[in-house]
């Protein structure tokens, strides 16, 4: 501020006391002519001699400001816009007017250059911080790799470059690339290209050896790297996206020829962004890999979708005890019959919950599968299953029901055997609900097991309901502490006469879920075996038909 701090030579003047003031002061009259100036002003504006028109000796912005300030009468603006400022001699000044009694205006000029620089830097920093915060929350919100790449490319194109490419390490031969132009939408493509053809890209995608962000000569860039219609490329920088110990990919930033190339500061900033994008992309990739593994392992443990087999209707539905899980300790299977034989249904419950229990259900299901040749001898099957499960280290048992179902004419013959499991219920055509006469020992805990098989015949439209105790032991109801119970289940089933297998399964699960409300519960499984209604019988419900066709 040396040049504003002029030396005081003049004597103090009553009319112009600011001769020696450290800030430049100009007094300008109503007509825009300079009346006086102080020493500091003389240093700043050497041409500004008294008598000269302000417009000739001062920057246009100051002259313009003066015209708005000194307007007399109602148009006058003595407290003119405090934001008046502009550049004089390469520095930035704020101009503060004060209107004097004689109508002249004294202009104080305050050097604001350093303030302004700091303000600009702060503003820029805030913008970057805000950008990084926004990027973080957008990236952290998703665990989907594609979406992470979209966000990365789009945000980079918004703030760092004219176009950006997010590239993920490829699993197959083709490289997943998301391209985004500034102001555009991110677009995914798969490129059959060799990343090693682009300097630095191969390393970035392998994550080894470590490479810094790297400039490449735009003229050597392969065509696929430059978005269509981008125009001449000024600069290209390839930044590795660091992952959690695994390579996450690479970020390619492109600027047009007419845009400034990257400053050091911008490169540092791009690296900060890349660190966030890389972390998010590798988390998403890990999640996807874990999900894929879980999916494959779980596929075997998930209950199957049931449908009609050899003329017998089957339906099943399962609700695990924890809403975030899809598997648990209940299981069911239908093993389709070979020609003329019975299909075998198994529904059961192993003690325990969650994944551990689910693994045991897997063991039981594969053992039963292996024992299928013996399917018409339930006792034998159960006895062999029992032996296979006996384990001296724990007494984790299972209870289950085996059902062999075969269509004879339009009726279904059933053999039902309970191994320590809640008794299957039969819904007759008139709504009567019967318990199947079968009892037996649970399997997997005691050396000697026995069971009694029941034979049941289902007429068309009748069905047999197998369920686990998660249904009957659902605790809830309006008072919150009552078991759903056998009686309530039977009453509900009695209203289900004539319903499809699917309908009953869904209805029972719905009633149990409503009984429970939001309370905790055990695994719940229901399987219904039904003799299909024959066509001519299907319309037998005269009450309904009469109403609409009569």
């Amino acid at each position: 501020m040396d040049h504003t701090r002029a030396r005081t030579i003049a004597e103090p003047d009553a009319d112009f006391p600011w001769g020696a003031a450290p800030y430049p002061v100009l007094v300008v009259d109503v007509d825009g002519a300079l009346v006086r100036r102080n020493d500091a002003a003389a240093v700043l504006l050497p041409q500004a001699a008294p008598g000269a028109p302000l417009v000739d000796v001062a920057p246009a912005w100051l002259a313009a400001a003066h015209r708005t300030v000194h307007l007399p009468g109602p148009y006058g603006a003595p407290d003119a816009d405090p934001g008046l400022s502009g550049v004089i001699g390469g520095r930035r000044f704020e101009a503060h007017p004060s209107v004097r009694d004689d109508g002249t205006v004294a202009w104080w000029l305050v050097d604001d250059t350093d303030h302004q620089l700091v303000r600009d830097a702060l503003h820029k920093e805030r913008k970057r911080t805000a950008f990084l915060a926004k990027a973080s929350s957008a990236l952290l919100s998703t665990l989907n790799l594609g979406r992470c790449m979209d966000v990365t490319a789009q945000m980079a194109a918004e703030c760092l470059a004219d176009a950006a490419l997010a590239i993920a390490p490829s699993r197959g031969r083709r490289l997943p690339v998301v391209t985004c132009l500034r102001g555009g939408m991110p677009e995914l493509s798969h490129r059959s290209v060799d990343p090693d053809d682009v300097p630095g890209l191969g390393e970035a995608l392998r994550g080894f050896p470590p490479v810094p962000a790297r400039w490449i000569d735009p003229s050597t860039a392969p065509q696929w790297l430059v978005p269509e219609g981008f125009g001449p490329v000024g600069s290209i920088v390839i930044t590795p996206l660091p992952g959690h110990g695994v390579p996450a990919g690479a970020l390619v930033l492109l600027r047009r020829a007419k845009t400034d190339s990257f400053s050091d500061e911008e490169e540092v900033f791009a690296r900060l962004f890349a660190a966030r994008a890389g972390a998010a992309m590798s988390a998403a990739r890990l999640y996807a890999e874990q999900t894929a593994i879980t999916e494959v392992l779980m596929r075997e443990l998930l209950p199957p979708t049931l449908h009609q087999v050899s003329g017998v209707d089957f339906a099943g539905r399962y609700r695990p005890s924890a809403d975030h899980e899809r598997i648990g300790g209940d299981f069911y299977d239908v093993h389709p019959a070979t020609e003329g034989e019975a299909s075998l249904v198994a529904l059961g419950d192993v003690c325990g919950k969650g994944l551990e229990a689910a693994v045991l259900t897997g063991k039981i299901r594969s053992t039963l599968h292996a024992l299928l040749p013996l399917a018409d001898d339930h006792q034998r099957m159960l006895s062999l299953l029992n032996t296979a499960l006996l384990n001296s280290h724990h007494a984790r048992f299972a209870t289950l029901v085996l059902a062999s179902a075969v269509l004879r004419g339009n009726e279904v013959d059933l053999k039902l055997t309970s191994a320590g499991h809640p008794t299957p219920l039969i819904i007759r055509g008139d709504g009567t609900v019967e318990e199947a006469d079968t009892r037996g020992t649970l399997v997997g805990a005691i050396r000697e097991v026995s069971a009694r098989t029941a034979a049941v015949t289902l007429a068309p439209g009748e069905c047999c309901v197998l369920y686990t105790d998660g249904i009957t032991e659902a605790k809830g109801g309006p008072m919150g502490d009552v078991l759903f119970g056998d009686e309530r289940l039977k009453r509900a089933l009695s209203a289900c006469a004539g319903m499809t297998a699917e309908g009953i399964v869904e209805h029972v699960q719905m009633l149990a879920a409503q009984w429970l409300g939001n309370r905790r519960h055990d695994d719940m499984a229901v399987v219904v075996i039904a003799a299909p209604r024959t066509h001519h019988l299907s319309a037998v419900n005269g009450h309904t038909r009469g109403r609409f066709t009569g």
Partner: protein
Amino acid sequence: MSISTPPAFPCGGRPEQLADQLLNAALAGDEHSAIELVVRALDEGADPESILLDVIAPVQGKVGQEWAENRINVAQEHAATSINERVITALGVHPAVGTSITRGRITVACVDGEWHALPARLLSEVLKLRGWRIDYLGAQLPTPHLIAHLHTTGADVVALSSSIATRLPTTHAAISACQAIGVPVLVGGAAFGPAGRYAKLLGADAWAPDARAAADQLARSPLSRPQLDHQPIDDLPHLADQEYTLVTRNSDSLVRTVFAALEDALPFMNEYSDLQRERTAEDLASIIEFLATALYLDDEDLFTGFITWTAQVLTARGVPAQSLRPTLHLLALELKDFPRATRILRAATRTVTTRHSSEAGKPA
């Protein structure tokens, strides 16, 4: 792709006629005829979207109505619904219904506790016809499963269906969860109230009155990604008073207390069978659930509307509806320290009183 300009029914047929025939088949449990009706219409060149929305949807509406008005039982309602489901499946595989994917990916699901899957199913099929790639997740979907699915598939939009008002708090949680991972949510279904007023309240990105409107809306303009700095409590600042939480948490003991007090107040309850007592307790529980929902939304109309409807149902069931007034009174006594609950209960009491007196004035 089909253009949705109904009626596209050839041979002089109208959707209403086909709907009547389909309704008869569905209520008679005649799956075979039901499927044949629709397949024949498609063979003759009917527009698939129109069959879904102008035939199957109204048929399902009628089935629901028949059930609500006690003309068919639960078994018939289920049977008819599952026939409608199968008709939709048959439509989906008909050679005339070619679908190619020309648009983005949408996940369609029902909120947790929503068992009526058919509206969501219809929407799925319509969106498929319009070229979207659809993941239909069905009824009663726990929110954690929905979110895991969205992470895996990266859907552009979630369409959530909810028909039961008392599931709205759960729906709000589901909407917020989807939005928090950057997926916009379109909602629909009776739960969202007249003109979808609760959809807006719960911060949904879009609402549509029916499947056709939803498909049109999604075709017109894609839903933009939701703001990530959104906090669910901002939608419903009144929740800060905890009335919803406390009423919900104590609902079991509220039912018990009010039930016991009702037995003292209404001598005829001594004659009730166990089943009747359980029904009464269930009615009580559902009144409290609606009250809690009204507290969640801070919307007293929701509660008064429910009470009016309950009064009608009770009357239809031959249960004296005047038991509603003491019920509301007893609840108000229990909740006297809850200003919003008190206000809502007072409004409902007024409604019941008005209704009662206006009915008393009318000759039956």
